[in-house]
């Protein structure tokens, strides 16, 4: 009996590929006449890094918005995490259930210190414990993100952009997410800072995190992504290995404009 249940357990793990870890089905959102995201279907494996590219206004951020219900929900479609549709939950429950996200613009609580920013997340997550434990968890998340320990008590609003991004990432990590959605983590950073973000993303992958990464910085995107998806006008126009996708005529066209 015991042996049998153990076998079933193993059996499930072997067949991860059958029921994808994260499955997006028919997801869509329109604003008046604009189809920001139309009919998106994707399936993502556990531990995979899916890069998402696309020209400005192609619906990348909207995709993250409707997955997290912040600031608005999808018009249609489902997001299945291990088979359960998370879109039936409230925004804060989606976050607590392990889908964390960073914003395209560095979005922090400006007059809270760096550590308080992350602490707030810990305190509101299901894992909240004693104050001492919570502070330790917040510091751990900041360390994980590579945030300098000397600046823990600086108000987040006073930090330079790179560090604000790290605070935002640390706060997301404090949710102990299974899925991490990063919206342009490298925008407006120096090459050196981008290299640090890249190392961080690879480190998180090692820790078995599933990551969706929106990025305009192509070298970063191709370096870390297992697969690359390209959106154009709200539609998925290509998906596959980064090399193959970048070579696709439709992708080149979307980026450079149609050749007449």
């Amino acid at each position, binding site marked *: 009996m015991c042996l049998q249940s153990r076998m079933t357990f193993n059996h499930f793990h072997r067949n991860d590929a059958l029921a994808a870890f994260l499955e997006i089905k028919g997801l869509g959102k329109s604003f008046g006449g604009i189809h920001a995201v139309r009919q998106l279907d994707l399936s993502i494996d556990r531990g995979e890094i899916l890069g998402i590219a696309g020209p400005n206004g192609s619906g990348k951020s909207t995709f993250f918005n409707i997955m*997290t*219900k*912040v*600031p608005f929900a999808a018009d249609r479609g489902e997001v299945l995490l291990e088979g359960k549709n998370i879109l039936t939950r409230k*925004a*804060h*429950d989606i*976050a*607590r259930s392990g889908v*964390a*996200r960073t*914003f395209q613009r560095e*979005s*922090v*609580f*400006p*007059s*809270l210190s760096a550590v*308080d*920013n992350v*602490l*707030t*997340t810990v*305190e*509101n*997550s299901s894992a*909240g414990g004693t*104050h001492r434990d*919570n502070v330790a968890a917040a510091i751990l998340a900041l360390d994980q993100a590579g945030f300098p320990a000397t600046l823990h008590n600086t108000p987040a609003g006073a930090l330079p952009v790179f560090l604000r991004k790290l605070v*935002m990432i640390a*706060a*997301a990590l*404090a*949710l102990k997410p299974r899925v991490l959605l990063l919206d342009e983590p490298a925008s407006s950073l120096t090459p050196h800072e981008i290299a640090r973000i890249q190392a961080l993303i690879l480190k998180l992958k090692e820790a078995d995190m599933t990551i969706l990464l929106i990025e305009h910085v192509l070298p970063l995107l191709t370096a870390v992504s297992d697969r690359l998806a390209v959106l154009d006008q709200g539609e998925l126009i290509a998906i596959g290995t980064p090399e193959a996708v970048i070579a696709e005529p439709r992708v080149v066209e979307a980026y450079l404009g149609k050749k007449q």
Partner: protein
Amino acid sequence: MELSAFIAVLTGGLVLGVLYSLMAFGLALVWTTLGIFNFAHGAFIVLGAYIAWQIGNPDAFGLGFLVSAVVTVIAMFVIGVIFQFLLVKPFERKPNIVLLTVITTLAGATVLINLINVMWGPRSKQIVLPASGDLSLGLFRITANEGLMVLIVTLTLATLGWFLLKTPLGRSMRAVAQNREAAQLMGLNVPLLYAATFGLAAALAGLAGVFIGSIRFMTPNMGDDPLQKALVVVILGGVARFTSPIYAAFLVGIIEAFSTYAVGLYWTPAVLFVLMIAVLVVKPEGLFGRRERSV
């Protein structure tokens, strides 16, 4: 102006400042967190005064000042939460929420005032505070009841400061006020925090009512002046930090005291409004403010 008169006026201004900070704090809290001006804040103050009178006064239930203050604060918290649920929450994500809630909170205020009229009648009442006699420190002299108010308000605001800075719930309330969307992403229960903030603001208004009801004769319409004063304080001071309205409250109290001395009670509101307009023109974010909304 003689020194003793000066000190007396200054003392009066400081005592007013204490009262005004209590009145303005809740209004500022709601403005920074929910992004609306609650025009029922004055009505909350009145309702608080009447509840306290009902519970505490010898002519009514006669349970004494302390019990009445505690019951008032709790009751007003609950009333605030209900009020927010009925009149603010339904309009939360609408683009014209500020205007809509001006209308709904004004309407709510009218309903509350009429209810007070029906329940307690228009005849004026007064809350009896427990202390008697005077306290003096050098040339500063206040009544023992004013001293009691200063003590209770100071303790309340200090506790509130500690709550906002040091407790998880307080931190979450500040976080939501600073960035609603990031807060949602970080798993903060925004609707719950909004309700708690509104309830807290109403509770503070209720406590302010307890003191106003003891200083003046209570009538159902006495809320207009406190609402105006609270608005002036919030606009003057800005809301960059949750302490900004407190500084502004003392400034307004002192200006009011001296202007009453110099130009009389009649012209004092005009002085304050001119000052407020000047600040709006020169430094619209408030004297103690930065431009962004935060606490």
